[in-house]
């Protein structure tokens, strides 16, 4: 017996605690079940790609901070690597290692945030989030110690990094690396076998491997769906080819898998940092690059593995002091492309969990 009911159209966002910024999802509900969903993006559009064409190559680095403000280091890094490849700049050995260390620290911080908010979206009342913030805080302290900023770091430079390590950096990094495995174990103890978390995220927001590949997913989204792909292995940059680490890969591609993959990636990041610190050579931390340098005419697409996925920069130089074209392949936006397929048929609560497991960052999505 079917009862005629009115479908309920609900705007989740742009002002909503679980959209992690100003992202809007217009869902059509039948009771609590989602029958249709539409993604509406662009609320945080700051026209960065156009603005970047008006600034010099060096002046554009701060823009990359403000894209994914939770992982500014990798934003910087990706842009700098792209420019260096475009201009064939040789980066000193020490700078390469420093970049690896900071990129992995940033990954730890970003994944801590992602997992914390994910569990928060599952309804835990802030506790796991604040636990993970504790580690993120320590990483940010390290950043502050090195470059003075905590969020918008602007640390990478074309040709290296802005500053060498301060003296107290390595001991403090050492103590963080020592305690991190225990912390991860602690979180896993709290969350991994938590029956409620399993109920909420197992089988929710399933992304099949085919779907993941067809929609050009990358990062933990792709790996959660069972595909072992990582730019750090596939197209090594910096000195990742000298590091020994594993790619964690999920089983079914549900929200829980993505959560676990991120958890495991933090472990791998610790491994990488330990190796990088052990191999850290002495030397200069930045190549000599003039402030008003002009890369030769040409174009480049260069990518790195940011915490959220494949962060690529497509740059065209006309030989001038400014980029002719500055385009960002932002993983947050592209990882979102399958959201509709993932949430339709689920309840509102599941959609929130799915959205949380994508780990989107609106700053990077809208640019």
């Amino acid at each position, binding site marked *: *017996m079917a*009862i*005629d*009911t*009115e479908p309920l159209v609900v705007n989740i966002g742009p002002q909503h605690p679980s959209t992690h910024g100003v992202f809007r999802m217009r869902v059509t509900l039948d009771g609590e079940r989602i029958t249709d969903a539409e993604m509406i993006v662009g609320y945080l559009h700051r026209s960065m790609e156009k603005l970047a064409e008006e600034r010099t190559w060096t002046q554009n680095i701060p823009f990359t901070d403000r894209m994914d403000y939770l992982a500014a280091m990798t934003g910087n890094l990706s842009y700098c690597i792209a420019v260096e490849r475009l201009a064939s700049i040789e980066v000193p050995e020490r700078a390469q290692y420093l970049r690896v260390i900071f990129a992995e620290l940033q990954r730890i911080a970003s994944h801590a945030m992602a997992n914390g908010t994910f569990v928060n979206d599952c309804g835990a009342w802030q506790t796991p989030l604040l636990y993970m913030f504790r580690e993120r805080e320590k990483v940010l302290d390290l950043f502050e110690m090195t470059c003075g900023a905590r969020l918008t770091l602007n640390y990478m430079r074309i040709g290296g990094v802005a500053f060498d390590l301060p003296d107290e950096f390595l001991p403090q990094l050492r103590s963080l690396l020592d305690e991190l495995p225990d912390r991860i174990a602690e979180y896993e103890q709290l969350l991994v076998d938590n029956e409620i978390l399993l109920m909420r995220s197992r089988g929710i927001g399933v992304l099949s491997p085919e779907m993941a590949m067809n929609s050009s997913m990358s990062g933990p989204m792709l790996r959660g769906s069972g595909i072992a792909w990582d730019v750090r292995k596939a197209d090594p940059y910096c000195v990742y080819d000298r590091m020994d680490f594993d790619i964690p890969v999920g089983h079914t591609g549900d929200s829980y898998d993505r959560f676990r993959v991120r958890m495991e990636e933090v472990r791998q990041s610790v491994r990488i940092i330990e190796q990088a610190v052990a191999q850290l050579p002495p030397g200069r931390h930045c190549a000599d690059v003039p402030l008003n340098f002009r890369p030769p005419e040409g174009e480049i697409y260069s990518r790195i593995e940011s915490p959220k996925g494949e962060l690529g920069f497509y740059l065209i130089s006309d030989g001038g002091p400014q980029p002719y074209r500055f385009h960002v392949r932002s993983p947050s936006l592209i990882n979102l492309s399958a959201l509709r397929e993932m949430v339709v048929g689920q309840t509102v609560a599941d959609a929130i969990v799915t959205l949380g497991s994508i780990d989107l960052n609106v700053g990077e999505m809208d640019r």
Partner: protein
Amino acid sequence: MIAFWTLAALAVTSAAMIIVVRNLLHAVLFLILSFVGIAGLYITMSADFVAVAQVLIYAGAISVLMIFAVMLTPRSDRDNAGNMLQAPALVLSGLVITAVSMVAVETDWRLADRVAFESTATEIGDALVSPFVLPFEIASVVLVVAMIGAIVLVRED
């Protein structure tokens, strides 16, 4: 005595308001108010178990059922608009009122000479399982039937 008149006025007024208001959900809310007033009347008759059961079942459960029914009504304005059934409803309710007042006038009302029960719940429990055991069991069978019927209705297959 004051309590009786206040509660009676509350119950009757809100019952009248159910018919008067045009918003169906307001009508349900007035119905609940009426139920609460009647529960109050039970208390003045020192029937505390019945009063609490009235609140628990009528104000708490039955009215929720009605709210769900109203919310599931497709009409979006949820208006209590006039329709074809007005005249028959008037006749029917007139008949009911006449019957009830006839009974009320005809009955030889005696004041209760017993003191209030120490615990009405025990008395009701005893009454339910000794003299009235058959109606009680029939009621439970009816409820089971209703429950099974509901399950069959909403089963998706």
